[in-house]
């Protein structure tokens, strides 16, 4: 993993990479901030990645 030099200003740490963490990270980058997304497991996605469909639209959840 390419390790960027640790930045100082304008960065945010998000702890937890489920749907809430991923969405926070995406919105923060859109608002002009760099994000470290710290996840304890081997992949982001959390429980959402286990769901097939979500109500009420039955969309594929990925």
């Amino acid at each position, binding site marked *: 993993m390419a390790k960027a030099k640790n930045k100082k200003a304008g960065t945010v740490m998000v702890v937890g990479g489920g749907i809430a963490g991923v969405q926070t990270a995406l919105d923060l980058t859109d608002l002009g901030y760099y994000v470290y997304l710290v996840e304890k497991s081997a992949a982001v996605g959390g429980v959402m990645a286990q769901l097939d*469909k979500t109500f009420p*639209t*039955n*969309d*594929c959840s990925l």
Partner: protein
Amino acid sequence: MSKEEYNPRILGFLCNWCCYAAADSAGVSRYQYPPNLRTIRVMCTGRVDPSFVIRGFVEGAAGIFTGG
């Protein structure tokens, strides 16, 4: 499949926002339908010029489907 069986070729124009999306979710839900449809995605069925329909028939379509 036997040659006698009616096996029409249908050309479909699907609106990106509704019918194309619906066709996607039919897939996600694994609904099964006959494989006779060939589709062209448009951003809205408003794009479908009457000449497209006529041309479709000329090219051998047994039916034209517009979904929007």
